[in-house]
């Protein structure tokens, strides 16, 4: 069963086209990653899917309902983690969750369970404004999970976090997936996309330019696979990873000039650069 479906979505703000014929679908229990640089149209797409914005053209569905008609019943099944956290800074960790548990009509006992699960139990009486960025991230994720979401929207869930916290959050997200929830995340983090997502879509200038599982995409662009040779002189040479490069490599080997050889497999980032000429962080 598909949780999100978009068909030829278009959005214009005045003369400016922000989304230009975006189509995709996300199945239940899938982690879908939307990758694209700032201004690619990621937030606009999320706003349309969640019913915050009306599309100029095309059709979108969320949990079987036209996004333009999605009401409170649908929205209460959606957990949202925004890039700005969206926390009540003066309220404590517990009060932030208590407020949303009342909005989501969930039991108060769920709060303690989630605090425990997210490692926030000790900070329950701390005002959100006094939390570190990593803790705010966790709290924002805890709030999104509080409604036992069937669908989670996560905007840059690990942006600016240290590797340990990032790994912990990835573990939590994998557990969420196991429970059957669908996750829609946007990220600039290639490692995150590759390790977490079942499927990714590369969005550039309002268009999806590539879509598939990270492995599929990388295999498709395997011709980008290169050999990177660092010579003892410090010079770096990049060669195609093909039989034609054997001669050059052999010559350097014979002369004892090679310090290291690496093969550079294509990543979603290199694919994105190949397709657009720009990096994802651009």
């Amino acid at each position, binding site marked *: 069963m598909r949780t999100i479906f978009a068909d030829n979505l278009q959005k214009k703000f005045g003369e400016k086209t922000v989304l230009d014929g975006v189509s995709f679908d996300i199945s239940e229990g899938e982690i879908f990653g939307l990758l694209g640089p700032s201004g690619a149209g990621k937030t606009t797409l999320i706003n349309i899917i*969640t019913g*915050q*914005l*009306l599309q*100029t053209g095309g059709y979108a569905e969320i949990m079987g309902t036209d996004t333009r008609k999605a*009401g*409170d*019943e649908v*929205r*209460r099944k*959606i957990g*949202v983690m*925004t890039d*700005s*956290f*969206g*926390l*009540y*800074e*003066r*309220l404590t960790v517990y*009060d932030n969750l208590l*407020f*949303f548990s*009342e*909005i*989501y*009509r969930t039991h108060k006992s769920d709060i303690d369970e989630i605090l425990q699960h997210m490692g926030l139990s000790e900070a329950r009486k701390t*005002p959100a404004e006094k939390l570190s960025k990593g803790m705010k991230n966790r709290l924002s994720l805890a*709030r999104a999970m509080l*409604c036992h979401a069937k669908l989670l*929207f996560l905007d840059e869930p690990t942006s600016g976090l240290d590797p340990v916290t990032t790994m912990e959050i990835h573990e939590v997200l994998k557990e969420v997936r196991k429970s059957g929830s669908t996750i829609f995340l946007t990220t600039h983090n290639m490692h995150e996309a590759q390790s977490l997502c079942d499927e990714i879509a590369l969005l550039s200038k309002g268009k999806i330019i590539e879509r598939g599982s990270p492995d599929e995409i990388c295999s498709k662009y395997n011709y980008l696979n290169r050999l990177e040779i660092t010579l003892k002189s410090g010079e770096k040479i990049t060669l195609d990873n093909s039989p034609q490069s054997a001669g050059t490599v052999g010559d350097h080997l014979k002369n004892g000039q090679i310090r290291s050889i690496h093969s550079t497999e294509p990543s979603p980032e290199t694919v994105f650069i190949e397709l657009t000429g720009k990096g994802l962080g651009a």
Partner: protein
Amino acid sequence: MKNFIAIFKKQLKDALKNKAVLIQFVMFPVLTVIMTMNVKPEGMPENFFVSIFATMYLCMAPLSSAASLIAEEKEKGTLRVLLMSGVKPQEFLTGIGGFILAACMTGAAVMCAVGGYSGKSAVIFMAIMAAGIVISLVIGRAIGLLSNSQTAANSVAIPLMLVMSMLPLLSAFNNTIAKAAKMLFSEQIRQCFAPGSEVSVSAEAVIISGVNFIIAAAVFFGAYKRSRRRT
């Protein structure tokens, strides 16, 4: 209704930790108590300070707190999360507005007690205060909806509340100002609380305040429609 109660409770907890907002609710009632208790020149009517501060209170506290709180929710992204969580915009606005009305009416009750109003006078005083607070609140909510940040909201709300609250006081010194001030609900309300006399409501006060309310409501609905425009 459940969302309204949840937002009301959240706002109460938040306001108790938000000194900038809290002071607006508390300052004028406390000032009224202090001045009435301590400054008692001979011949000064009992409700002298109440008549001055009540008008300023209903022009300032609801307007600036509504504008600031709504703009803050927009600025911090909490409003976006709320709307995506199934809270209707009208529930959010009612929750915030309900809290501000309750807080300001508590302050009004203190002023009523200090002013020595009782019985029918107290009921009329509170009714006038409620009407003024609602008009001011509607204006503040419109400003909040039209602003993307607290700074932007305050840059409109502060001059506006100063004009509305100071014009009635300045009208005593200049006829032109007096004529202009007469068109404001704040001046009409000030006249209802004339020092040394019973609280009274004239037909002119009702009509002018009613017109002020209609204009404020029209501006609010325009702002609401604009902020809700999803195309």
